[in-house]
């Protein structure tokens, strides 16, 4: 939905939203009407519903026009850009939520979940979609999503319109297998492509005073971060770029992880956690003189499915507790362990190589380069769901559970496109099958 508000709202909206009969200005207050959306060259790009609410009896107190687009995110964006080109200024959807998230007061996961609870489902999806998908990757994701929506439309359509939509279970398996192959091929190329395109983000985290900032400086070879004996020195996230073995790296230094009453530090800790969540690689630092504590194990457990290097710092002091503990902890969990000293520089090259090593698998430089870890994650979840649907078919499960797996796969990709999956599947049912009595 695009909402235009302000004294010239009706003029602005009227410039691209044309009623079938008459002018927007003459539309009765608070009456939904059908309109064609027209771009600057006169092409109709969507049919939409519009409603005019004249001030002061509107949300904002000013004249307000709401345009409900039909064709999903792209069309909505087009409508928005039309509104902007006719003189409107943009206020982002979910702006407030985004601000709350960006100011570090709530986590991304929380923001998303709450949006799902409080905002229109479509708006939550838009927020999740976050960064815009474009180019070849965008086209590819939309094609996969389209295929999943088609399959969903068929199984779900057959359940909801048993008299009108034929049962196509037979062909489903083959289509899912082709799709699984494509998703899998993409993911095989993903780590390298991901690293080459965006560079990678590497985040230093750990309890206070373990030597994160010292390591940050040593890796960058400059005195960028403040180092002191006091735990809790670093507050905000520091960010510097450099290159390790030809790999563009954004290195983050963060506040030491601990529970604290102090508000500035508490925000810092939240941000540290959020930064680690977003990073491609986590360098979890422990102090060789202190060893690995219970808290460390909790954090390592939380991030056990991520690319984590367990870094033992201050090895120049020769205490050895951290090294000993690391052997026990990292063994079963499989994290790589690297011993370093920021004072002598020992281990720094090994650390850089270990990080680069994460990205050396896979084929040559991909034709298609994925854009971010988040996108890769969505595709991975889509593949998991497709594989589940395939085994459910093989094992002879009923259509309802197969449909749920297909739906989950489509929803994983929809996090990148912002589409409302049930609604989009329904659109396909109606356009492909002669449904209804």
């Amino acid at each position: 939905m695009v909402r235009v508000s302000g004294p010239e709202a009706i003029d602005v909206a009227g410039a691209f939203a044309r009623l079938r009969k008459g002018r927007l200005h003459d539309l009765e207050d608070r009456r939904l009407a059908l309109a064609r959306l027209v771009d600057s060259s006169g092409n109709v790009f969507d049919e939409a519903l519009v409603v005019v609410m004249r001030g002061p009896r509107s949300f904002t107190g000013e004249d307000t026009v709401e345009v409900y687009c039909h064709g999903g995110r792209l069309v909505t964006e087009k409508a928005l850009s039309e509104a902007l080109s006719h003189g409107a200024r943009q206020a982002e959807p979910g702006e407030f939520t985004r601000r709350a998230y960006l100011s570090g007061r709530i986590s991304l996961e929380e923001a998303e979940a709450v949006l799902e609870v409080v905002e229109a489902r479509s708006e939550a999806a838009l927020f999740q979609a976050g960064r815009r998908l474009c180019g070849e990757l965008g086209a590819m994701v939309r094609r996969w999503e389209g295929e999943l929506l088609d399959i969903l439309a068929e199984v779900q359509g057959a359940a909801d319109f048993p008299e009108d939509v034929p049962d196509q279970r037979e062909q489903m398996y083959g289509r899912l297998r082709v799709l699984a192959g494509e998703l899998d091929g993409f993911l095989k190329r993903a780590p390298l492509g991901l690293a080459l395109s965006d560079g990678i983000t590497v985040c230093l985290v750990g309890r206070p005073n373990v030597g994160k900032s010292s390591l940050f400086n040593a890796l960058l070879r400059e005195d960028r971060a403040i180092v002191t004996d006091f735990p809790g020195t670093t507050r905000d996230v520091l960010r510097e770029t450099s290159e390790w073995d030809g790999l563009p790296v954004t290195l983050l230094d963060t506040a030491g992880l601990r529970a604290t009453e102090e508000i500035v530090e508490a925000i810092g800790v939240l941000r540290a956690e959020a930064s680690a969540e977003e990073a491609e690689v986590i360098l979890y630092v422990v102090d060789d003189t202190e060893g690995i504590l219970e808290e460390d194990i909790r954090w390592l457990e939380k991030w056990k499915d991520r690319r984590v290097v367990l870094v033992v710092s201050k090895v120049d002091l020769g205490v050895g507790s951290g090294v000993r503990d690391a052997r026990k902890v990292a063994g079963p969990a499989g994290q790589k362990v690297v011993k370093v000293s920021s004072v002598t520089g020992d281990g720094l090259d090994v650390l850089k190589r270990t990080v680069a090593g994460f990205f050396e698998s896979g084929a040559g430089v991909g034709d298609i380069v994925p854009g971010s870890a988040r996108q890769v994650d969505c595709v991975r979840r889509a593949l998991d769901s497709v594989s589940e649907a395939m085994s459910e078919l093989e094992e002879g499960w009923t259509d309802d559970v197969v449909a749920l797996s297909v739906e989950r796969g489509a929803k994983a990709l929809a996090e990148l496109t912002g589409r409302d999956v049930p609604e989009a599947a329904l659109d396909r049912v109606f356009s492909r099958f002669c449904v209804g009595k």
Partner: protein
Amino acid sequence: MNGEIGTVVVVGSGHAAVEAALASRRLGLETTIVALNVAKVSSMPCNPSIGGPGKAQIVSEIDALGGEMALATDHATTSMRLLNASKGPAVQSLRAQVDKKVYAAHMRRALGEAGVRMVQGMVRDILVGKDGRACGVRLRDGRELRGDVVVLATGVYLESRVIIGEKILDSGPIGEPASHGLSASLKGLGVVMGRFKTGTSPRIKRGSISWGELSIEEGTDRPYAFSFMSKPRVWESEVCYSTYTNEATHKVIRKNVHRSPLLNGTIEGIGPRYCPSIEDKVVRFPHRARHQIYLEIECGDSDDVYLLGLSTSLPEDVQLEMVRSLPGMARAVISVPGYAIEYDYVVPSQLRPTLELKEIPGLFTAGQINGSSGYEEAAAQGLIAGINAAMTVMGKEPVVLQRDEAYIGVLIDDITRTPIREPYRMLTGRAEYRLLLRQSNADTRLTPLGRRIGLVSDERWECFRIKEGQMETARALLRKRRGGEAVWDLLRNPRYSLADFFPEIPELRDLPSGVLSEVEIEAKYQGFIERQEREARRLARYRGKAIPPGLDVARVVGLSKEGQDKLRKHSPATLGRALEIGLSPSDAMILLAYLRGGGER
């Protein structure tokens, strides 16, 4: 006020109005129905059928909460089928053909027994007090009816127009008058109205059909019922007649398309895609050689047969030509022609999940007036509006069902939170937690809530407790290990069914088949069910986020004035409740950030 606890005025006498009135009356409020024609109760202007995918689940949920629709359906059924029998428990749905006169008579009796007062008249204005609350209605003849709350369930009657070809009538369905003025009164109160349209098929005189030329579909032989309190019955003797359109029918339609008000622009309202007219189908799918038509007998002693699948608004002469081209209908006589109807509706994003208008406390809307379609969807909203109307008057917590609790929750969440583009119909695909929301477990899911609300009778509660006990017994029998794996675990293999184990566990035979089939689903689908429960819990955690009772609202920096007032007035216990009383998303975010960070900045 002249009732002991309070009074409710319900406007309308259709499926939503009846459930609303019954609920509020049974909860002890003095309840009055005002309707254009009080002789018409729960009528079925579309086809005489109840249930189907998504809708059947709703009917059973209404039943578990103490509503009337399922009982009326079982009482009036002439045949019943289980759809999607092989597609899994999430989508299995009953559908009944009913005798519409018997159905209406059941409802009329229920209203009478409950003591709902009936008043005939056309409501023109909503009365709003100085405090901004709705406090009654004014009729066209000037009479006023006062009430503590008002429930509008006027269906498709607001400013309705009936269109048959070139003929446009200012009326409601089948010769009933339209309701004029109320829509304007709502707009005057700041309510945004939209316009939808829907259509019906012609009705044919029974005696004018040559039944021998039609194909017969046999009924099924398993016992079924919608209500937990009805004894399942077998419908083996029932049959259903059907036929197909042919090239001649399509030729008639193509020749006359220019006279179709749907396609030539006379109709402005937006129609449902799942219920296209026959002219739409022929134009949009030109390669389809035929479209199926079902013949539905409306009631035992009437003469009318509804031609399901032949919805149209073509002129009457074209309709006759079209009908007569069908097999067995060469001499057919149309008793009521098909028609399109356009009507105003309240854009439902203006409603709280309690179905109260956000901006006009005390005014509830339910059913097609909210842009939904279908008898079942209407009845469900009526029930919820009726319950919440009563809760408001009694000063109790409102009842809001979540998406993972009931199809009714999905329905209300969808219409109040996403813009609807066509009359909203329930489908199983809309419920993401559909494996949890089975028709077969509606009683388990919702009877306890119905009991807490006060609509579940002692008798029903007793039966429910017995069934719960039997379920426990069955689960224990299956979980017990005998030598190797427990039967419960073996059932997870899709190749096994519970019946395979009857020889091993003969005690199972003593339990009712409904109990066994339900426990079988629980065992067989356990992994899938648990996964959905996990997904549902993720969101529930945020809804359930506690708001401390002594919260000093003034210290939550950034809250809007309105948000502060709402929190002070209602002191909601959780974030979910705060949203239900109308806290805006941005205020909710601020509150959450405050609660989460413990931060006072």
